[in-house]
């Protein structure tokens, strides 16, 4: 491993040094292809972010793919209803590794204003691992770009081997997550306990 001071010195002299992980992450972070789907009004902001004024292509993420097979990034933009949740999880499962999720807007994070509704999922992170949460109702396109930059920073710092490496490089970590089923009263199960485990609250029966 090259020393940081030596590296900076070399850089000043016009010699660029890098390593495999950096090169790999640099390539990946600048070509995040999102999956093209929108669930509610946040999708409009997502569309605005991809248009000329905000121009998500500055970050290499303008190639919205119509098929999960070609996508790296899932932007859950909008309210996830309980009827839609199994489809979203299945789409996530069908994406090849490495894959990332941005939960965009209050609804995708927690159910938002519809949290107590009978048909709204209380946050997509109950079923799939979310990398970046963007609050807002809906978030502005700048917020989405900020989330994308945060995700790029996250990818930048990924290790190739050893402990702390990202999920997709770890053979032990799953790539598919169980798809919930529509039950008689609610989705079954209501959450994936390996992913979503808030502090338990004791009940006085």
């Amino acid at each position, binding site marked *: 491993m090259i020393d940081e001071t030596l590296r900076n010195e070399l850089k000043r002299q016009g010699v660029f040094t890098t390593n495999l992980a950096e090169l790999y992450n640099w390539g990946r972070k600048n070509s995040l292809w999102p999956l093209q789907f929108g669930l509610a009004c946040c999708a409009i902001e997502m569309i605005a972010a991809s248009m000329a004024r905000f121009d998500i292509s500055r970050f290499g993420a303008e190639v919205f793919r119509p*098929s*999960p*097979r070609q996508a790296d990034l899932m932007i859950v933009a909008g309210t996830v209803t309980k009827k839609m949740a*199994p*489809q*979203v999880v*299945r*789409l996530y*499962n*069908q994406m*090849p*590794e*490495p894959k990332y999720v941005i939960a965009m807007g209050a609804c995708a994070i927690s159910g938002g204003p519809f949290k107590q509704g009978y048909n709204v999922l209380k946050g997509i992170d109950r079923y799939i691992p979310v990398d970046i949460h963007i609050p807002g109702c809906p978030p502005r396109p700048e917020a989405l770009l900020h989330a994308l930059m945060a995700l790029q920073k996250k990818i930048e710092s990924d290790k*190739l*081997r050893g402990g702390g490496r990202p999920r*997709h*490089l*770890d*053979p032990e970590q*799953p*790539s*598919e997550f169980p*798809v919930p089923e529509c039950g008689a009263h609610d989705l079954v199960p209501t959450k994936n306990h390996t992913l979503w485990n808030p502090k338990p609250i004791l009940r006085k029966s």
Partner: protein
Amino acid sequence: MLTQNETNPHLFLAVFIAVAIVFALTPLLIARLWAKLFSPQKRGPIKNSTYECGLDKQAIGWVQFKAEYYLYAIIFLVFDVEILFLLPFAAVFKQLSIGAVVAMLVFVLLLVEGLAWACLKGLLKWRQS
């Protein structure tokens, strides 16, 4: 017979083929090596299933399409090309001489002839299988 200094004139072909094969295989091998060293393959029943916009698959995707679609595509092409030529024609219609109009009419007539032929052949009738 070859002398010491002369080389086989076909040698460069062999070199080309070898380089081409190496050139094609190297990225594949690197990708393979990369996958083996770092990125584990994660297959699964859902990931490998047919993509149906997130829904459960209804049936397999290997179905036969009727050959008639092809004929319709060809006939559509006739009109497509016709529009392609008629649009610029329409834009300068007023400045054109009578000869140009007649030429265009002949062109349209040729296309209509093709359509009439297809119609007489019964290609525009959709046959239920």
